[in-house]
């Protein structure tokens, strides 16, 4: 593979996984390239980023995982995103965590983080301090992790009288029903044939 194409592909893959990152082994498998070439490609990519003043990105290695991240010198720019109390990014995170708790309660922090793929301590704190969620019990097992649920204040906030008024989640694959329909159709064609003889 041409090294430019390899780099474009590595960049795209690392971009899509975000904070989760990828190992050299994973990249090698996904791109069907030797691990040595992946390693070489990663360091070339990193050099490209570092030498390009117009690029805000770099590659960071955490144990055996590589992830795409912003250059350390741009930290002040990123901070602007979270300094504003009405920050869009923060409100999206809180809303997402609240949605997970509302639909999956009771749920632990670890489960929430597994679902989101992002650390969620801060949004949980925020929601708890605003009285929208609270501890509703402890999970079984060694950790006895806190289980979170929504509060009466949550219902007030969204104008609900109880949790059953939450809009239902979509029923997943709509195709399932179409398949069933076909099966019934066949059945009823038979019935129809018999009846109209």
């Amino acid at each position, binding site marked *: 593979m041409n090294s430019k194409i390899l780099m474009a592909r590595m960049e*795209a893959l690392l971009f*899509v*996984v*975000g*904070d989760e990152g990828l190992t050299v082994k994973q990249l090698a498998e996904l791109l069907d390239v030797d691990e040595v070439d992946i390693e070489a490609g990663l360091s070339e990519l990193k050099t490209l980023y570092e030498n390009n003043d117009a690029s805000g990105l770099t590659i960071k290695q955490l144990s055996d995982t590589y992830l795409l*991240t*912003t250059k350390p010198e741009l*930290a002040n720019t*990123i901070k602007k*995103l*979270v300094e504003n*109390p*009405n*920050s869009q*990014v*923060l*409100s*999206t*995170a*809180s*809303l*997402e965590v*609240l*949605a*997970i708790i*509302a639909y999956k309660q009771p749920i632990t922090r670890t489960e929430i983080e597994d*679902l*989101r*793929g*992002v*650390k969620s*301590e801060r949004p949980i704190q*925020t*929601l708890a*301090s*605003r009285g929208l969620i609270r501890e509703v019990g402890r999970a079984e097992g060694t950790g006895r992790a806190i289980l979170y649920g929504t509060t009466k204040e949550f219902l007030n906030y*969204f*104008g609900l009288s109880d949790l059953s008024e*939450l*809009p239902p*989640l979509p029923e997943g694959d709509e*195709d*399932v029903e*179409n398949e*069933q*329909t*076909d*099966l*019934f*159709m*066949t*059945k*009823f*064609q038979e*019935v*129809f*044939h018999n*009846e*109209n*003889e």
Partner: protein
Amino acid sequence: MYEVKLDAFQGPLDLLLHLIQRLEIDIYDIPMAELTAQYMEHVQAMKVLELDEASEYLVMAATLLAIKSRMLLPIHEGEMEETEFEVEEPDPREELVLKLIEYKKYKEAAIELKKMEENRPENFTKPPSDLSPFMPDEQLALFNADVNIYDLLYAFQKMLRRKQLRKPLKTTVKKQDIPVKEQMLRVVDVLKKRGGKSSFSDLFPYEDRSTIIVTFLSLLELMKRQVVFVEQERNFEDLTVILQKEERLGELEDLDG
């Protein structure tokens, strides 16, 4: 007899458009007798899974029958031969035709959307990064005051989309054992017990789909034979099924239950 296409129709208008196209009927001059007959046949051949929808297919059946009979009226008037005079009555089909044409536009637009859905350029993006390392300690942010419950649902959906969870496909096949004929008698029985009248949905106290479907088919058959008729006060309101001529049930022998 011609094979019923294995398409699920999007309601009675969709079925009518399908028939009009297949029979090469001119939508502006619909032969009502033919279309009505074909419609009745199809609805019987189709399963109708949802009760809600079933009532709409029935309402359309009733509408078609009504238009058909209104169109028959002038033919039987004897005076027609004497004077070549024609009264300009509104065409009883007009409202239906306008509805069909309007619906057709959006049906076609939906097909366009389907193509766009298939050909959409595939740009992948990433979830927002974890910003906690950048976060000042004293800050606590909450969403804007104008979020509603759908924003919440959407947030959840979006998260699910990121995780790409998919449910496994499952299919169920059930055997249908109740003959339509038997169910027709049962329906008439129920109607008699309720003083000759019942709401449509009350005729479907059953849980399983196949019984629901057989009941629906039997209602259609009863309608066709004018044993019952069906009324609806307003669009999408529940139907009332009224027992009309029970004696017509006698001709049931030709139904191969």
